């Protein structure tokens, strides 16, 4: 316990061993793990207290996190990384893996996000899952997820991280398929699993390669020794880590599972498939900064993947009518931004994490809001069956609007601060990438406005027997909290306590980027693009429907009538049709091409399996013949190796 471990990120900096309040670090994981244990093994006895136990476990973890955070704030920047060794896991041949926790500013940020947003979502789920007979199990899985996710971000060794990595995958898988009576849910769970396995294979190979090159898998050894390793190896490891990140974070080309993952209960979508788990890939890349620093090729690959995904996700978001799938496409796109930033190196790491945190707030907010709507609408997810809901769910609407303004990046909402920084950094790096990021912001504004209009404004298109009602307090309170965070979270993180960039600097480093033009120009341009996106959406979805159902606005609509007509035509010809066609083909490519690739591999395996199976005739004589054949081969092989 007293061994002084060293963590080298970019420079050699001694890391303090856990003492004082830091001795509690392990409690962060212990609470939810214990909760999961009690709930999953306790059986029906714990049915009645399940939701309370689950929520308290998550809350306790958050309290510990807050205490640790306060203490960390009081420390000097270079003393903030603390290592808590727990036990020796693997003393294998030459491979020493000791399980230890590393709490530094980067993991602290994640811990606060996971436990904070996690607790809010636990509270929300009490109401959302109230009528589900398996609520206790649901909370057990949620706690399991929180524990695994905390292990992932607190690990001080890639192998331990891998344990958390698989753990969150398992929890995600269990929760996507939670409503197993729906065939689609079971299929989605399976798809998520299969696609994730591809990513996990990257992770396995990366760990193997690290071990081969560095002789260890501990962060200190790998990241500290990265500058002494050839660029080729770093590139290989970097690309493998990227593959892992793509799987977990639904990045191109492994993004297809995330849309289907929406089959899970909505709180799950909010916690796992928006706020936390899917951002693990970003964490992995940022944490492995030292590797990417020596592998420019891998770094470029990260940028490319991020850019493609951010545009693709946004376009997919435009085409969906299912409210959760729009949000899922948007999640892909937003994580694309983070990955893009993470690919920019120290210039972008802090911004990637910054956007990750703000996205955690507003996307969880939006998902929970969507859940509240579904709760009110008898689990309807088709936005074409919504409309005019703002009067029936005023609280939800308010918080949803905060999330909406945050995601499209309206100042001073949270998303503005973080997305703007990423677009800046992208332009500083490459004009094309910057343009894509800017364009993405516009499309984001478009599809989010469309979602807003179709859900909250426009006329009622409800199914006949629906009686919309506001959700209970236990659901709206978390919404209010998240709405508030969507409003002020970004600015708060940027301007208090030295700011997020300064906070992360000891871990990820900092690098000034040189913009080819003044910052205000870019900010203005971004805002213009956003406004354009909003306007476009309004013209397409707001105007027509408003004209039909909301006579109070007719005057406003008539003043713009001519221009609207013209705009409509332009929209139709220049934007909508190609856009829709592009969207359509992308969706097609997504659901057919990639699915087919996945299915193709499966079919190939199944086919060859069937073929090989036929060899198994059941006749002893053919078995004996195959043995004889094998023996002849073995003899010939041995003799020919030597005698040739």
């Amino acid at each position: 316990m007293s061994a002084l471990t060293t963590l080298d990120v970019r420079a050699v900096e001694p890391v303090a061993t856990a003492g004082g309040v830091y001795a509690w670090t392990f409690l962060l994981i212990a609470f939810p793990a214990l909760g999961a244990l009690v709930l999953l093994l306790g059986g029906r006895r714990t049915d009645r207290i399940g939701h309370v136990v689950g929520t308290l476990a998550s809350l306790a973890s958050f309290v510990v996190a807050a205490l640790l955070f306060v203490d960390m704030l009081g420390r000097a920047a270079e003393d903030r990384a603390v290592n808590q060794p727990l036990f020796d896991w693997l003393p294998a041949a030459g491979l020493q893996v000791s399980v230890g926790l590393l709490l530094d500013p980067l993991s602290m940020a994640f811990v606060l996000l996971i436990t904070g947003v996690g607790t809010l979502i636990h509270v929300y789920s009490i109401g959302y899952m109230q009528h589900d007979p398996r609520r206790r199990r649901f909370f057990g899985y949620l706690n399991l997820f929180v524990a695994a996710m905390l292990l992932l971000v607190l690990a001080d060794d890639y192998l331990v991280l891998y344990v958390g990595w698989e753990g969150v995958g398992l929890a995600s898988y269990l929760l996507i398929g939670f409503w197993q009576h729906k065939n689609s849910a079971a299929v989605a769970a399976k798809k998520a699993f299969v696609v994730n396995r591809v990513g996990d294979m990257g992770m396995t190979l990366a760990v193997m390669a690290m071990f081969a090159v560095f002789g260890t898998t501990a962060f200190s050894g790998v990241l500290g020794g990265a500058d002494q390793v050839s660029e080729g190896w770093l590139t290989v490891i970097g690309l493998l880590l990227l593959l892992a990140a793509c799987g977990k974070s639904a990045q191109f080309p492994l993004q297809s599972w995330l849309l289907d993952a929406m089959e899970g209960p909505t709180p799950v979508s909010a916690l796992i498939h928006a706020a936390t788990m899917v951002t693990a890939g970003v964490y992995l890349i940022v944490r492995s900064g030292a590797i990417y620093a020596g592998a420019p090729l891998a770094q470029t690959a990260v940028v490319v993947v991020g850019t493609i995904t951010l545009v693709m996700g946004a376009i997919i978001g435009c085409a969906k009518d299912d409210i959760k799938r729009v949000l899922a496409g948007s999640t892909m796109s937003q994580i694309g931004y983070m990955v893009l930033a993470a690919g920019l190196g120290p210039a972008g790491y802090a911004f990637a994490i910054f956007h990750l945190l703000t996205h955690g707030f507003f996307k969880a907010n939006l998902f929970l809001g969507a859940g509240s709507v579904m709760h009110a609408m008898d689990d309807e997810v088709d936005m074409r069956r919504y409309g005019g809901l703002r009067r029936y769910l005023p609280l939800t609407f308010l918080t949803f609007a905060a999330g909406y303004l945050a995601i499209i990046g309206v100042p001073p909402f949270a998303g503005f601060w973080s997305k703007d920084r990423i677009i800046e950094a992208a332009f500083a790096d490459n004009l094309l990438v910057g343009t894509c990021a800017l364009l993405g912001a516009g499309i984001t504004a478009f599809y989010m406005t469309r979602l807003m209009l179709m859900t909250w404004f426009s006329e009622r298109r409800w199914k006949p027997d629906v009686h919309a009602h506001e959700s209970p307090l236990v659901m709206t309170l978390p919404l209010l909290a998240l709405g508030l965070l969507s409003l002020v979270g970004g600015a708060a993180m940027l301007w208090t306590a030295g700011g997020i960039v300064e906070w992360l600097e000891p871990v990820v480093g900092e690098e000034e980027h040189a913009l080819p033009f003044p910052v205000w120009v870019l900010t203005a341009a971004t805002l213009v693009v956003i406004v354009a996106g909003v306007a476009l959406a309004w013209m397409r979805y707001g105007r027509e429907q408003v004209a039909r159902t909301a006579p109070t606005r007719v005057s406003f609509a008539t003043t713009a009538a001519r221009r609207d007509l013209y705009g409509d035509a332009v929209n139709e010809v220049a934007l909508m049709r190609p856009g829709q066609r592009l969207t359509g083909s992308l969706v097609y490519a997504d659901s057919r091409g990639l699915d087919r690739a996945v299915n193709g591999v499966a079919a190939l395996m199944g086919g060859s399996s069937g073929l090989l199976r036929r060899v198994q005739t059941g006749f002893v004589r053919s078995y004996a013949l195959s043995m004889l054949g094998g023996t002849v081969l073995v003899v010939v092989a041995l003799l020919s190796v030597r005698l040739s």
Partner: protein
Amino acid sequence: MTALTRQVTEIQSPTIEYGLLAPMLVVFGAAVLGVLVEAFLPRRVRYPVQVVLSLGALAVALGMVVTLADRVEVAAEGSVAIDGPTLFIQGTVLALSLLSVLLFAERRVDPGGDAFASAASSLPGSEDERTLTAQRVQQTEVYPLVMFSIGGMLLFPASNDLLTMFVALEVLSFPLYLLCGMARRRRLLSQEAAVKYFLLGSFSSAFFIYGVALLYGYAGSVRLSDIDRAVSEQVGSEGLLLAGVALLTVGLLFKIAAVPFHAWTPDVYQGAPTPVTGFMAACTKIAAFGALLRVLYVGLGGLRLDWQPLLWAIAILTMVVGAVVALTQSDVKRMLAYSSIAHAGFVLTGMVVVEPAGISSVLFYLAAYGFATVGAFAVVSLVRDAGGEATHLSRWAGLAKRSPLVAGVFTLFLLAFAGIPLTSGFVGKLVVFLAAWQGGAWPLVLVAVLASAVAAFFYVRVIVLMYFSEPAPEGPTVAVPSPLTAAAIGLGALVTVGLGVAPAPLLTLAEQAAVFVR
């Protein structure tokens, strides 16, 4: 003639180190006693006496192996080697045999009694059989049989010369051939399995003994150390040596079910009574790997440049065929059979590297795999319908709803097979792959990782089936086992989790054990 006479007069009475051989002697002694029990005790008391005798002997033998730890000696005039790998494998086999005998003794799951036919000689479907079943006649001959087999398994990896090894091979195999044909349910399938196993097993034994003969022709001795010396001094004809090595290896690869000598595995695993299948899948494979390790490392270490490429090819074939064919299996026992083939491939991956790290990783993997295997087959024996065990996978749909506990435990074992972290299987795969990678066999590791990804798929398919499918209306019931099976499953699960969370002690032990005596 004079030379012959002189040799004869010089015969000395050999010395036998009884202390070192004690574990094997205890097991064989218990087996012989078991035969006497069958002969002289009344039917009523045979069952408790046999169970207590077998379990007691196994426990005593295990204790003796523990006290022998750290001994590195050659015993019985050089025919038996007591060293780290021997003792590690003997300990593992004994521990797993204990669990298996617990399963053999289970009498509460099947309405007819235990898993074995009332009289193996009665004609399936005959009046004879019906009467015996109605009278609830139970036979107890399986206990001495299994004890003989265990004794052979203890000697197999310890054999320091090829003749002893051959004798051990036959001693472990013959009782197994019989045990395979003794299932209470689906007797024709069981008898077919026994005949197949017997025919192919004798075929492989023939290869083995042929290889021994050729090696004797080359080296003038069957002792492994002498063969090693002959190889390094390069006496005699290379053709003889290589052909001998090939045939000998084939005999051993048959026992570990490596492709292309695996064809018997699915049929035999499916047909044999489930406790026997679990015992075979775990213990036979472990003992055979021990023997293969000793032959390749001690006797043929100097030839590794010749057999390494061969083992590479066989490892790749074994992993790929095992994992791929398992995908389309619809019977849970056959699926586990192919899975065991794939696992043999993974273990071979670790053996390719002739280094202590390779040995220790293989030893650890075998132990981890063995406990999960016995546990998994024990679970299979619990899921039943009117016709006995419901082994068709479609019958397992929605099992989690009927019996969350059993489904959960089975999931644990499957996850261990798939190599998910925090289970023993993960640590096992990790150390094996790492050892292979370090030894320069990275293409093999690549294939292994791919194969385990494929393998993960069919394990998960079963989990999906158990958790996410609607149970069939007239699905199987999960029998409530006696404490015997419950203990076996519990211990298997405990070790599987324990080795995943805290593998350090066993890994250290395996590392210390990774030295052969020569």
